[in-house]
């Protein structure tokens, strides 16, 4: 357990019932933000509050500061860590349904056979069908970090591995083994002319999780886009890389018609459920705005 924000809620709801908790905050030296020629290194126990306020992040990795600032509330940002933000569980109300408040659902994510959102209430669920579970990855930092090609360092007792964050997530969770933890997040140095933008749509600006979010990282040479990465949050069980949207941008100047076409391509493969089609135009609009910056 690091900040505990997600885990204690899950324990209160009886979704997880650990026999013991290990307090990761007793590990020395996992709270830091450092920059060198390779890029940015963030210790996994660094709080979201420290990340949104770090000068180097505000100046050079603006999208990470934007994403951090958009997380939950000031209190949560004081408590929650970046490692926890990346590993947090989905907010699906079938998955989280509490034995304390009513019947709980033995859903697909818990080892059952069905995703109850498909035939049930699904207004906040996935619009991209990348798996059989339709809960969405709630992390704000994950899309921003994936757009910047971040990697995570994963450690266990007898060694460590470095994994691109893009490959960290699986349809029902992440690649961490029970004896592994994230220790560091590495973000490569960004070219000085890179444009970054993180945008998030939510019901209440003060606190909510994303209905949809977009992280865009765009690099251009004399106005022509040489590289674009667009990652969507809140719309799939994992952060969703909008590769079609990136392809539309490549080699182009940013014009209204290019932006329009890219945003359309971003949601081309969306297959909304019965109650969440409204997320498609919201996502498309966010992509447009994020590209324009």
């Amino acid at each position, binding site marked *: 357990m690091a900040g505990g*924000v997600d885990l204690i809620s899950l324990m209160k709801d009886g979704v997880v019932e*650990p026999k013991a908790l290990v307090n990761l905050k007793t590990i020395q030296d996992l709270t830091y933000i450092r920059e060198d020629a390779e890029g940015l290194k963030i210790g996994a126990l660094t709080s979201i509050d420290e990340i949104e306020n770090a000068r180097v992040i505000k100046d050079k990795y603006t999208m990470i500061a934007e994403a951090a600032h958009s997380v939950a509330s000031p*209190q949560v940002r*004081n408590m929650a860590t970046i490692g926890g933000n990346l590993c947090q569980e989905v907010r699906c109300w079938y998955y989280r349904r509490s034995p304390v408040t009513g019947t709980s659902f033995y859903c697909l994510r818990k080892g059952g056979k069905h995703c109850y959102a498909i035939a049930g209430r699904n207004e906040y669920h996935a619009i991209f069908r990348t798996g059989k579970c339709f809960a969405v990855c709630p992390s704000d930092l994950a899309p921003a970090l994936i757009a910047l090609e971040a990697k995570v360092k994963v450690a266990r007792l007898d060694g460590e591995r470095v994994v691109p964050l893009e490959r960290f997530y699986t349809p029902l969770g992440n690649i961490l083994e029970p004896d592994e933890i994230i220790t560091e997040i590495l973000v490569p140095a960004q070219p000085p002319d890179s444009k970054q933008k993180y945008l998030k749509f939510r019901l209440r600006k003060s606190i909510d999780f994303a209905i949809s979010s977009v992280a865009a990282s765009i690099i251009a040479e004399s106005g022509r886009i040489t590289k674009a990465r667009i990652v969507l949050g809140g719309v799939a069980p994992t952060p969703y890389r909008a590769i079609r949207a990136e392809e539309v941008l490549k080699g182009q100047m940013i014009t209204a018609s290019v932006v329009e076409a890219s945003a359309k391509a971003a949601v081309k493969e969306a297959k909304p459920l019965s109650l969440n089609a409204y997320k498609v135009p919201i996502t498309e609009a966010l992509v447009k705005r994020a590209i324009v910056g």
Partner: protein
Amino acid sequence: MANEIYTITLAVNSDDYQLEVEAQWTLADVLREKLGLTGTKTMCNEGGCGACTVLIDQKPVLSCLTLALECEGKNILTIEGMADPATGELHPIQTAFVEHSGMQCGVCTPGMILTAKALLNDNPNPTEAEVREALAGNICRCGNYKRIVECVLAAAEMMRGGNWNA
């Protein structure tokens, strides 16, 4: 894990309390049930409302999602620690909430006041937007936000003008 008893010392409002706690007890549980400090409210009990906000080492955090065991060696401030312990004189933020009608039902008030205290420690002269931003995690179900923001601005003015040292 459940039912294992640990003995800890908690520093709450500058007093040390030696307590026996279970591993899974939250700070909110311990403040309310063991210390009788029921000024700290628990509403949603899942981190979504801010009613249980206390200051730990001067930062606003949610006591409903903080394990009591983790709080050893830290300074905890609750609403009961805001007034002057010798004279009972209210803190200027409390005074402002009384004078400018900052509370309706009152359940969000302790959390609002503690969050405001952390803001004014860092930023004695906030703008209205900064107050709203700082209080973003404190939900008032009566919808009294306009007056609450006015109270914090009034308190800031009082504290800048006065010789208040808390």
